[in-house]
């Protein structure tokens, strides 16, 4: 027999003394809801038509919200290759783990279905709305309506919904039906699951034997499974400025000494470089550094300090950046500082969407960090 809970003992004792039983301690005070006031509160002010126009950019499946404009497949290809292909690939095939935008037809019933605009998205309005509100990644709401029409037309072409002579406009929009428009149904859990997953449950002798059918360890994809937490823990200590520095263990001490000795002359201030590593998080959506760094929407930046502008192989620069390099611009402390403070002011026409670093300390730190990266 299980002993009575402390709560039950308390209630019994109180009753024995002839007192009223107290309210159960676990039941919270019933909340008193906030209620509306007759005629409202009169707070806020009326939104102006220009203000609503500035923010009300959403598009619906019936085309409500679309601005006047148009764009064709070939214009769309140009814009897409310039602004989207770094992540999504020239043909919507995707780079790395960025979303694949085209293909995947007929895969929805298979293992590992490929869900793209063509194979999965039910409405064209969703493409227009999303490109317009959130793309290019890191430079949202910078596209003109005609560019969005053109990109959307190119995406339809990549998905074999239209031919290469197609032009999408607010008028031709309604004529497009997406291949998977009929592929959705409302939530049917109330009919298919809720009743089936309810009722009495077995508590004793429910199975004769139990076999293990699958183990996560076989895949071994859990982060830090072999070296638990050391990196993360050190980062935390570093960021927390009030904490005393942890005494370095022997191995760490040895590694640091060796590195210092090897490059004591030319090496940038390691503390400044470490601060720069934190600032670099602002850049890392588009730029990679270090071993195996690859081009993303921006070029990889290994060895950038000391190099001519616009010259890393395999990256498609803006013509403005290439010209600047051809005219003798090289990245040193001074030029980097000027560029990072105001990228689009310093090189008019650069593809770099970043608005610039306001703090001179951040610029010095990030320069030290970049300088510490090898080629």
């Amino acid at each position, binding site marked *: 027999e299980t002993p009575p809970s402390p709560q039950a003992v308390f209630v019994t004792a109180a009753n024995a003394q002839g007192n009223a039983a107290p309210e159960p301690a676990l039941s919270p005070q019933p909340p008193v809801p906030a209620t509306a006031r007759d005629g409202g509160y009169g707070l806020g002010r009326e939104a102006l038509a220009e203000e609503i126009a500035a923010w009300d950019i959403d598009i619906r499946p019936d085309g409500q919200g679309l601005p006047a404009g148009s764009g064709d497949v070939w214009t769309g290809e140009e814009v897409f290759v310039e602004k989207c292909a770094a992540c999504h690939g020239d043909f919507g095939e995707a780079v790395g*783990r960025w979303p694949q935008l085209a293909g995947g037809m007929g895969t929805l019933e298979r293992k590992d*279905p490929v869900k793209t605009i063509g194979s999965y998205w039910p409405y064209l309005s969703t493409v227009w709305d999303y490109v317009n509100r959130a793309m290019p990644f890191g430079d949202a709401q910078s596209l003109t309506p005609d560019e969005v029409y053109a990109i959307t037309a190119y995406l339809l072409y990549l998905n074999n919904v239209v031919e290469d002579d197609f032009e999408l406009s607010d008028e031709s929009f309604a004529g497009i039906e997406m291949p998977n428009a009929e592929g959705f149904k409302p939530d049917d859990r109330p009919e298919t699951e809720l009743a089936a*997953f*309810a009722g009495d449950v077995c*508590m004793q002798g429910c199975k004769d034997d139990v076999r293990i059918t*699958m*183990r996560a360890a076989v895949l071994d994809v859990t982060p830090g499974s072999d070296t638990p937490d050391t990196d993360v823990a050190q980062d935390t200590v570093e960021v927390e400025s009030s904490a005393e520095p942890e005494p370095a263990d022997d191995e760490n001490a040895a590694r640091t000494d060796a590195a210092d000795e090897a490059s004591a002359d030319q090496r940038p201030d390691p503390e400044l470089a470490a601060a720069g590593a934190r600032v670099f998080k602002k850049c890392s959506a588009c730029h990679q550094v270090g071993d195996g760094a690859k081009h993303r929407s921006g070029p990889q930046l290994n060895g950038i300090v000391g190099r001519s502008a616009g010259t890393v192989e395999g990256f498609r620069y803006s013509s403005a950046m290439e010209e600047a390099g051809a005219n003798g611009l090289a990245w040193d402390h001074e030029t980097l500082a000027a560029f990072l403070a105001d990228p689009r002011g310093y090189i008019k026409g650069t593809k770099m969407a970043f608005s610039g670093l306001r703090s001179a300390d951040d610029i010095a730190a990030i320069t030290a960090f970049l300088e510490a990266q090898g080629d």
Partner: protein
Amino acid sequence: APDPAITELQPWMQYLGDGVDARPYGSPSRFESHVIRRNVEWLTADPVSSVNFTPLHELDGIITPNGLCFERHHAGIAEVDPSAHRLMINGLVDKPLVFTMQDLMRFPRENRVYFLECAANSGMEWAGAQLNGCQYTHGMIHNVQYTGIPLRLLLEEAGVKTNGKWIMPEGADASAMTRSIPIEKAMDDCLVAFKMNGEALRPEQGYPVRLVVPGWEGNMWIKWLRRIEVGDQPWHHREETSKYTDLLDNGIARRFTWEMDAKSVITSPSPQAPILHSRGPTVLTGVAWSGRGTIPRVDVTLDGGKNWHEARISGPSFDKSMHRFYFEFDWDGTPLLLQSRAHDSTGYVQPTKNALRDVRGENSIYHNNGIQTWLVDERGEAENVEIS
């Protein structure tokens, strides 16, 4: 031998510690520096549009500390200046309105505790056991006390027209996140919240103001809330068509699967929280929640489901909030197969993973609330497994 922790003078017994001016905003003990959100690098293309996970295995009670609430952003953390933040209500209303943060502070507020679970929580486990640790398998959830304005009060201030059947909240970040929500839910229990656990929302949780959509998938809880449009139909935007739809075996996808089904997980012992002591008294604990009500009961098994025991729920039981359960037992040092099974106040019982797969197949990604199994070996170490 005598314990040196007793017989030797420790530095903190001898020397003075920090004064009251040293830590004006406190942080946890440095001995707790391992208790942090973690992400899974291979999961997404970039940490700016990604997710990290609440360290459930290190927590107790029902409230998640603000700095440990998992994060999911689609364009990084917007650092919004509250003096430049506006909330607009437009669309099918009598009078479109703009509120400053100061305006919002003058509306009546309520305090309520709710869980927020990402619909993709446990999504990596659809096809089988994959990640070792409840932080990774179940950590896209947090449970917070919100202070906020009932959304109904703000909508009534603008006056919803009779054909206003849906709302579309929109975020101020660079993804301008949007979702469609039926007006009934908006008028029922949604909050426009500005405080979490008593303090201002953290930037990563939508500072200065976010939407709270109790019991419904986390993606709908728009952060950095800047606009609410009222309309007569849903918008079918990206997050409710290409994402957050549940693809079934036959190639048809469910949409508008808003409610989070009842679910539970044992947080200790678990792969990141092994049993570190020898046989004898052992505390098993975990959390349970339901998007449809409270959790009156949780069962646990130590032998892979041959026999079940009713766990003890401790702490407040709020509607659509996380519940904490315990089961104390004497471990005999032999391997264990641990599972927990939540019952919610509607009578729904958390299904096995295979029961879910029988209905949905393995391609759904979202809404995986199947029963989790941990294998604990003779050394007390735990592993994520599936069983017959």
